[in-house]
């Protein structure tokens, strides 16, 4: 990848500095905004939490400053059980960014949470928390399959939720 494609600003995606020879070849790391930052801070503590309105109690995702139901600006982060079902999935093939092409084809799932089916999270379906992106045969993936969350330290200090089949 050319140097011109590397991030040059503070709000560009950060990459793991110690993965591969060229940091530009690592998996992309989340670039939290102000509203999303607590999600990633809880993830680093291996807790899956979703933003909830402190006034009316409605969960909302992605996080945002104000409750679309009652306009309250007060919120808290409610812990989820980490169980859910595959709502849909896709299996990307190259051309992809180098780190993704190296593990393609891999499975990206969108999971609806058991605690709140209207809250859906995208993530990778893997065989174990630290396994490769392509560690589950895409042919085994089904919409509706039960999954549970796991946490993977993708770079020092940066943890992302991943998903494991309940019945692999």
């Amino acid at each position, binding site marked *: 990848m050319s140097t011109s494609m590397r*991030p040059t600003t503070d709000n*560009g995606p950060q990459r793991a500095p110690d993965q591969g020879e060229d940091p530009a070849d690592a*998996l*992309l790391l989340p670039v939290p905004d102000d509203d999303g930052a607590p999600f990633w801070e809880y993830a680093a503590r291996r807790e899956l939490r979703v933003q909830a309105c402190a006034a009316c109690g409605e969960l909302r995702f992605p996080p945002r400053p104000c409750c679309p139901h009652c306009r309250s600006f007060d919120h808290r982060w409610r812990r989820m059980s980490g169980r859910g079902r595959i*709502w849909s*999935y896709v*299996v*990307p093939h190259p051309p992809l960014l180098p780190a993704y092409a190296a593990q393609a084809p891999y499975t990206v799932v969108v999971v609806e949470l058991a605690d709140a089916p209207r809250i859906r*999270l995208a993530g990778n379906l893997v065989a174990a928390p630290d396994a490769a992106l392509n560690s589950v045969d895409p042919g085994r993936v089904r*919409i509706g399959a039960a999954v549970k969350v796991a946490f993977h330290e993708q770079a020092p200090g940066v943890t992302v939720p991943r998903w494991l089949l309940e019945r692999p």
Partner: protein
Amino acid sequence: MGATLKDAAVIAGTGQTAFAKRLPESERALACRAIVAALDDAGIAAAEVDAFASYTMEETDEVEVAKAIGAGDVTFFAKAGYGGGGSCATVAHLAAAIATGQARVGVAWRSRKRGSGPRPWRNTAVQLPTPAQWTRPFGLLRPADEIGVLARRYMHEYGATRDHFFNVALACRNRANQNPAAIMYDRPLTREMYMTSRWISEPLCLFDNCLETDGALACVVVAAERARDLRHRPVYVHSVAQGLPAQHHGMVNYWTDDPLTGPAWTAARQLWKQADFGPADVDVAQIYDAFTPLIPLSLEGYGFCGRGEGAAFTEGGALEIGGRLPLNTAGGGLSEAYVHGFNLITEGVRQLRGTSTAQVPDAATCLVTAGEGVPTSALLLRS
């Protein structure tokens, strides 16, 4: 009811460059060529141009274009958001400006070198207008990956199959095979080619994806009163709409109660509310086809069939010439050129002038839509 845009403005001229995987000229030069051609087509002098409209991801701006073509004093300029979702909004904004006396001669354009230039998704330093932190780290990198998730869910909920997506790809390719300007003019598509092609993002294969193209297009919009002075039969802008649904999230629309009800539904409600005719009266449709599944989703959204019936609608040659709804009659983004949907507007004009290379007999009404899956826009054109 107060003022209406209905039939207040007409598309007076269109212009385009060649389409190719690689064109030598700059996007700016291509934009100017398309605009000059559109003004020639309309028979209107560049000095009369006093309005411009474009949409985001356009690299040429009004200042550069206006001074190059020799436009006059410009009193209206607007840029619609969301890339391909803004194509039809350009005509809508010009029609509104002209109908309210803000300008008299408007130009909308699109110039793009995506065939030879870099893909936007490869630029990791720029956040696309999506909540990237929730998707990109997991390898949902490209629009095809993002739409692929919705396509898979659609197949699951409604029994849509790859054959339905093939019906869309085939109709567009068949029309491109009739259009010498199309990238795929001399390359027929077969079911075997489709079913054995490489995956891009399962369930989407190569032929479910549009063509990345170099090229530029433009059109000229003037008041309907001026129609009799024009070089060609005027094409009336009958109804216009933009659409950003409640709780919509862009291309990664996974977080609403019903992700398969996209911006088309919102645009359609406004579009039909302002129109003298309905979906059953549309003679030909130019529907944004960056990916084949957008067609069944849009057929539902714009009311050509019921919820979940869009895939079945494509059966039996419905999208071919002579079918229920001839689609993307120049080949669309899938097989003519992907220029962020602007070629769908110009083909709509050709159909209503009677000059398409795949002419629908006596076509008098045409729906043109912009990108579905992002905040969108749409036009109803009539002759």
